[in-house]
C-alpha cells in the first residue's frame, strides 16, 4: 500500500533530477550563438525559396525569354541603341518577277495557311531586374531555380553518403571480425583512388542528370563518415548501457540502431551538414564541366559555365548572380555547421 502511495512521489523526484536531454542542451547552446542563429535564419530562407521553386511558386518561368538578349540589369539601364545600322537596305523600287517566278501561283495559298498559326512576339523588356542571359532569360529567376537544383543535389547526396557511411560504419564497428575486415577492405579500396578520379569514373558510367549526380557524389563521398561512425561504434559497443540492453534481450539491430545510434547521432548530424557544403561545391564543378545536370536544367554550375563566355563580352551579371547566391548560402551553411558542432560537442569549441 505504501508503495502505491510512494510511487508517484518517487516518480516526480526522479523527473526533477533527470538532467536535460542532450538535444535540449544543445538547442539552448545553439540559441545563444548569435552567428549560428543568423545563419540558421538565412539557411531557412533559402530552403523556403527552394521549396517554393520546387512547387512552382517562384521562378517557374525561368525558361521564358522575357528580355532582350543579354539585357542589362535595371540599375545599369538599357544598352545604348547602337544596333541595326551596319546594313543599309536597298532604296530602289521592287522589281516585279511574278511572271517568271515558278512559286508565284502558290503565294496566296501559303499566306492563307500561315494565318492559321499565330505567333505572338511578346514585347521584350530592355532591362531586367538583375539582367538577362544570352537568350534574354531572367538571371534572377535562373539563380533561384539553380539554387533549387544545386541545394537539392547537395542535400540528397549528403543524405545518401551519410546513410551509406552510417550503416556500413555501424556494421563494421559493432560486429568487427570478418564483416569489419571486409568493410575495412572496401574502405581502403575506395580511399585508394583519389576522390576526383573516383567521381570521374562514376560519371563516365552513370551519365548525366540530377539522379546520377546524387548517386556519383554519394557513392564517392561516404568514406569519411564511415570512418568516424565506425570509431564511435567500436567505442560504444562495449559500454555498459549496450550490455544492459543485451541483458534485457535487445537484438543486434535494436542495439545498433535504437541504443547506440541515438548516442552518436550528433556526429552523424554534423557530418551530414559538413558534407552538404562539399557536395554543393562538387555539383557546381561537375555541372560546369558538363558532367552534371542535364541541358534543360539550370544549376549554379551551368550558370557559371555560361557566364564565362559572357564575361568576356562585358555581361557580368549572370556571374555575379550565381556567385552571390552560392556565396551567401554556403557561408551561412558553413557558419551554421560550425555553430551546430560547437553546440553538440562543446569539447571541440575553439578548434578551427
Amino acid at each position: 500500500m505504501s508503495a502505491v502511495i510512494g510511487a508517484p512521489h518517487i516518480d516526480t523526484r526522479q523527473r526533477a533530477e533527470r538532467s536535460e536531454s542532450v538535444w535540449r542542451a544543445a538547442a539552448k547552446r545553439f540559441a545563444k550563438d548569435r552567428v549560428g542563429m543568423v545563419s540558421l535564419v538565412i539557411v531557412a530562407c533559402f530552403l523556403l525559396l527552394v521549396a517554393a521553386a520546387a512547387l512552382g511558386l517562384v521562378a517557374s518561368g525561368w525558361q521564358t525569354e522575357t528580355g532582350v538578349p543579354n539585357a542589362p540589369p535595371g540599375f545599369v539601364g538599357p544598352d545604348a541603341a547602337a544596333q541595326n545600322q551596319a546594313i543599309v537596305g536597298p532604296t530602289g523600287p521592287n522589281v516585279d518577277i511574278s511572271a517568271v517566278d515558278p512559286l508565284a501561283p502558290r503565294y496566296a495559298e501559303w499566306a492563307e495557311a500561315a494565318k492559321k498559326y499565330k505567333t505572338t512576339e511578346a514585347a521584350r523588356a530592355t532591362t531586367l531586374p538583375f539582367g538577362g542571359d544570352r537568350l534574354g532569360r531572367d538571371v534572377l529567376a535562373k539563380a533561384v531555380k539553380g539554387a533549387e537544383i544545386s541545394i537539392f543535389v547537395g542535400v540528397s547526396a549528403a543524405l545518401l553518403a551519410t546513410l551509406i557511411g552510417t550503416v556500413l560504419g555501424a556494421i563494421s564497428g559493432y560486429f568487427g571480425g570478418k564483416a569489419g575486415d571486409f568493410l575495412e577492405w572496401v574502405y581502403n579500396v575506395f580511399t585508394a583512388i583519389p576522390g576526383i578520379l573516383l567521381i570521374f569514373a562514376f560519371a563516365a558510367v552513370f551519365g548525366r542528370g540530377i539522379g546520377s549526380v546524387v548517386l556519383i557524389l554519394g557513392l564517392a563521398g561516404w568514406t569519411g563518415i564511415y570512418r568516424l561512425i565506425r570509431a564511435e561504434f567500436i567505442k560504444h559497443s562495449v559500454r555498459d548501457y549496450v550490455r544492459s540492453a543485451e541483458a534485457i534481450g535487445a537484438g543486434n539491430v535494436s542495439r545498433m540502431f535504437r541504443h547506440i545510434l541515438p548516442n552518436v547521432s550528433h556526429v552523424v548530424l554534423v557530418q551530414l551538414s559538413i558534407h552538404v557544403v562539399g557536395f554543393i561545391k562538387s555539383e557546381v564543378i561537375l555541372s560546369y564541366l558538363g558532367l552534371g545536370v542535364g541541358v534543360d536544367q539550370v544549376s549554379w554550375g551551368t550558370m557559371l559555365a555560361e557566364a564565362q563566355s559572357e564575361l568576356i563580352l562585358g555581361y557580368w551579371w549572370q556571374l555575379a548572380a550565381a556567385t552571390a547566391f552560392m556565396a551567401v548560402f554556403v557561408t551561412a551553411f558553413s557558419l551554421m555547421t560550425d555553430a551546430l558542432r560547437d553546440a553538440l560537442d562543446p569539447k571541440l569549441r575553439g578548434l578551427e
Partner: protein
Amino acid sequence: MTAYLIRRIWQMVPTMFGVILLVFLLFKGFGGDPAEILAGQNASAAQVDAVRQQLGLNEPLWTQFWIFLKQIVTFDWGRSWATNESVAHLFATRLPATLTVMVPILILDSLLAIPFGLGVAYVRGSLTDRSIMVLTTVALSISFLVYVIVGQYFFAFQLGLFPVQGWSDSLATNLIRYAPLPVLLATAVSLAPQTRLYRSFFLDEIGHDYVRTARAKGLTEKTVMLKHVMRNALIPILTNIAVGLPSIFVGSFLIEVFFSIPGLGREVLLAVNRSDYPVIQAFAIYIAAITMVVNLATDVLYKLVDPRVVLK
C-alpha cells in the same frame, strides 16, 4: 624497417586487387557496351558482334577479368578508343605538363600557408585572427570556378599581364610564360583552407605544456615558435601535404581545362566526355597504385622527422 616495408607492401596487394575489381565491375556492370561504342552508330549487328569477339566480350566474366589483370600487369592497355593513341604514351606525354603546373603550386602553397598559419595561430583570439577567420570562411564559400574565371578575365584578358591560355614544348617557356597565372590563381585559392588548417595544427601545439616550459626557461618567442612548436606541428602538416601529393598526378583538372594545359587531368576529363573507357580505367588504377606508394613513403618520412615515431 625492412620487415615493416615488406609487410606494408604485402598489405597493398588486397587493396590493389580491390581497386582493380571495383574498376572492372563498375565499367562492366554500369558502363555501356564497349562494342557498341567502338563500332559506331551505323554498325550492323554482325559488326558489333565481331568487335565483341575481338575484345573478348563473349568470354565468361572471369576470363575477361583475367585479361584485364594481364593488361594491368604488363602495362599493355592497348589504345585509346577516341584517338587511337596508346595509353602508355598518353600517360608519358601528358604527365610533364601536369607536373610543371602542380609542383610549383604545391611548393608555393606549403611555403606560404605554414608561416601564415603560424602567424595567425600566434595572435589567436585577436581582431586580426578573427577577421582572417571570417575572411577565409567567406573566401571558401565562393566556388573555385569564380576565382579562375575572374582571375583569367582580369589579369590576362583585361590587364594583359599573362597570356590567356596556351602551352609550348619548352619547359622554360612554359614555366616563365604560361604557368605563372594558373599557379598563382591555384595557390591563392588554396591558401584560405590551408591557412585555417595549419592554424588549427599550430593551436594544438601552442596549448601544450612544453611551450610554457620553454617560455619559462626564458627562450625567445622566436625560438619557442620556430624550433619547438614548428617541429611538433610538422607531423600533421606533413600528413596533410602527403594526402595532397597524389593529386599532383591528377593535376588540378579545372586549371588545366581553363588554361588549355595538355595535362593528365584534362585528358581524363576528355576521356570521360568521350566514354573512352581504357583511359579512365588505366588512370584510376595507376593513380591508386601511386597513391599507395606515396602513403608508404610518407610513413617512412615520419620516422625521419620525428624519431619518436615507431614503425609497427
